[in-house]
């Protein structure tokens, strides 16, 4: 992969919390237009990696590059401005805003006009397929699932180049997961996105990504096409338990 094609590069990133080493010398790259699956046991450092990329945490060691630019230690909003958007594993409800308002806020990153931003928000919400009746509901009234969709919509509305999805499908029924996967594929191709998906639902990951990276105890233990990774004995031992169907 030549440099301009690398959208995200994480180099030797280490992050500790007291005695816990959440990330241990992690290095990985994501190329333009890729959808990369990031999997690994609970507590293996996936969310922490997202946090280090988006500026929520500053890595103790190592660098993060986005489109060739060193973004280590930037503020989250600066990272967002550069074009990285994310969703959150732990739902963080916006209790007093409506769905539409929340998504509009995302869209305001690329424009100063509220009108324009609202238009973008409407487009994104339609794309995601959140029914119109839900748009006026407050964050305190919607279900966990709707939350995740709004989260996704808000992230998309910021007009990102790189999208980090943290367990977006968790809690969804299978057919909804399928629908979501379709949506993600659609925006991916529409907008020329690059995506990293963290998910424990293997089918979801496999249906989306051509390449999967496996974290275990803060280290990358495997990397490659989904089928290959899924049959990797270390991955089975550490993560899958048995070979998935």
């Amino acid at each position: 992969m030549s440099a301009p094609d690398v959208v995200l590069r994480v180099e030797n990133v280490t992050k500790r919390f007291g005695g816990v080493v959440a990330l241990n010398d992690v290095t990985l790259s994501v190329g333009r237009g890729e959808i990369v699956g990031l999997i690994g046991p609970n507590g293996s450092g996936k969310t922490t990696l997202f946090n280090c990329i988006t500026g929520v945490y500053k890595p103790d060691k190592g660098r993060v590059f986005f489109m060739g630019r060193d973004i280590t230690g930037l503020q989250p909003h600066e990272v967002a401005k550069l074009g990285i958007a994310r969703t959150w594993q732990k739902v963080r409800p916006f209790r007093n805003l409506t769905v539409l308002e929340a998504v509009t806020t995302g869209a305001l990153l690329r424009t100063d006009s509220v009108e324009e931003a609202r238009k973008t928000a409407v487009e994104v919400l339609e794309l995601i397929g959140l029914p119109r009746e839900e748009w006026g509901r407050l964050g305190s009234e919607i279900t966990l699932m709707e939350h995740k969709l709004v989260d996704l919509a808000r992230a998309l509305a910021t007009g990102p180049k790189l999208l980090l999805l943290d367990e977006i499908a968790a809690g969804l029924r299978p057919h909804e997961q399928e629908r979501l996967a379709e949506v993600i594929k659609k925006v991916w191709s529409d907008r020329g996105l690059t995506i990293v998906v963290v998910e424990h639902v293997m089918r979801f990951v496999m249906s989306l990504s051509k390449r999967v990276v496996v974290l275990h105890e803060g280290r990358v233990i495997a990397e490659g096409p989904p089928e290959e990774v899924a049959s990797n004995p270390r991955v089975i031992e550490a993560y899958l338990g048995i070979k998935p169907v």
Partner: protein
Amino acid sequence: MTRSTLLSIALFQAALLAVGFLVSGNNYYMLLLTQVALFAAFVAAWNIIGGLTGQLDLASSAYMALGGIVTSLLWMRLGLPPVVGVWVGGAVAAGLAVLIGIPTFRFGVREVWYALMTASLVVILNNLFRYFMGPWDFYLPNKWGWLYLRPRTYFELFIIVDVVLLAVILVNIYISGSKIGYYLRNIKEDELVSEAVGVDTRLYKLIALAIYSFITGAAGFLQVVIYSSFSYRLFDAGLAISIAIMGIIGGLGSISGAIAAAVVFRALGEYLRSTLGGVIPGLDLLLYGVALIVVGILKPEGLAGLFNQLRRWWRK
């Protein structure tokens, strides 16, 4: 701005002016009306930082006093007429607010800590001014006129205050409909999530703080005009708290609620003071306290909640 908001502002203004004309023959009511409107303006300004942005700011009276004192001193020492001076007063207040706001937001002081920090700011300034200007009351010069924002009649003073109030309302409405407003409301909900969608939370909190403190500082001189004198006691922690409380009793973020609360409680306070204060001392404040408790417990969504309820009921 939608037509209905414009219409309601126009109605509100018309009503206020009508009341002004009606009572213009009575100095007492005129002064009271002026004080109520000024108080409402302070509450409305607070709404920007407290209601929209969700920062528990308890330093309102610090900016008010600072702006008021700076304007007065510029007038008394340098002969700068307050019409010009208030802008400087507002700027100084905003300057201080931003100066303190930068590290405060930088290091992530929020919630109760922010509230206590701002409350102690009032005490610090109170003490510092006490140290440098002594306990004395400084009386405004015996000069009157629009140039000094100190007209001869209460009615004119009321007009000045009303203009300020109207300006604050418009600023509020403009902000809430704009990008800033969206960002501020998001900050109020969740700062980290806002950051991740590109909101420079520190910057926007600073913007809100600056607007609020500027308005409060500039309008502070009108408070001095009503007092006719100023001293370090203008830095009054209790006043700052009651301004914030009016903002919340009104329903956080709702400008009409905030103003309604300011009007109702300020007028209620004066009514109780003037009817009961001389009869059973303290009963007025006691009832005032009871009113706060009752509204707080029964109508936690504030007066705005009550309005909404009425509106729903009306539509039915």
